[in-house]
């Protein structure tokens, strides 16, 4: 461990909030999905850091499951983007207001 735990967690928090800002500010759904991947990865970094800190494997297992769920989420999110683009030809989540949420 080349740096203290606090440094890793701080980097993880910074990455997480960069991702949050990306989800909030950007309106391109592809970039929003990539920001969500950033969120997953920052959480993984925290998990792996604490796993190393406690010398316990469970953090690794949990990070592995997070990677799997991220793969499923990316596939479904991109499928939704594709079918929305087939109908509107304009990729902007503010334009997609059919459900009036």
């Amino acid at each position, binding site marked *: 461990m080349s740096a203290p735990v606090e440094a890793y967690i701080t980097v993880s928090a910074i990455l997480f909030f960069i991702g949050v800002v*990306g989800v909030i*500010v950007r309106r*391109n759904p*592809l970039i929003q999905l990539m920001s969500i991947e950033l969120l997953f*990865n920052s959480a993984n970094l925290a998990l792996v850091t604490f796993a190393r800190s406690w010398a316990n494997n469970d953090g690794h297992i949990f990070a592995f499951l997070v990677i799997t769920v991220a793969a499923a989420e990316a596939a479904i999110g*991109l499928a939704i983007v594709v*079918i929305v683009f087939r109908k509107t030809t304009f990729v902007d989540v503010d334009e997609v207001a059919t459900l009036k949420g």
Partner: protein
Amino acid sequence: MIGFVILALVMIGSALFTVTAKKPVYSVVGLLLNFIALAITYLTLHAEFLAVMQIVVYSGAILILFVFVIALLSSGTKPFEPGPNRMPRVLVPAVIFGLIGFGAIVAAVAGTVFTPATIAGATGEANVFGSVADFGTALFTRNLLPFEVTAFVLMVAIIGVVLLAGDETPSARRPPKRTREPISPPREPIAR
């Protein structure tokens, strides 16, 4: 420590580039750099199997999926339009919530004293914490049920993607196959 500082700067810089890039393709490149730096960071944390999985699954599968979708969507007549800039409208609440959340995390971390456990052996040696054998033993003995649930999650995702994007519209489905007319007249039932 200097290596960690470099990795952290690369990760934060590439994340900022991902979020602020004009085109999604640039975001993919920034995200790729972020994932590679994160994989190296995993190596410094004795998580060598996860480092490999990070490269294989994220950079190899998920990012390629993003690239394919971008190529598919950009091949139409209309290219991506940046749209109006929403930054001024959401900047103040984003900064407020970001600082509150970040401050909470930093306060929670700063109030705790971490004493990292010492691990005998270096990264890459066999049967050390975080090696493939160690990870596999933990995954297939104590955590077998989560692993199998993972398979179920992936199967549901695949079925969902096929249902969502497989057929364009119900009317665009192929017409039902014409049934072949029987060449010979149907055989009469055998009288008994």
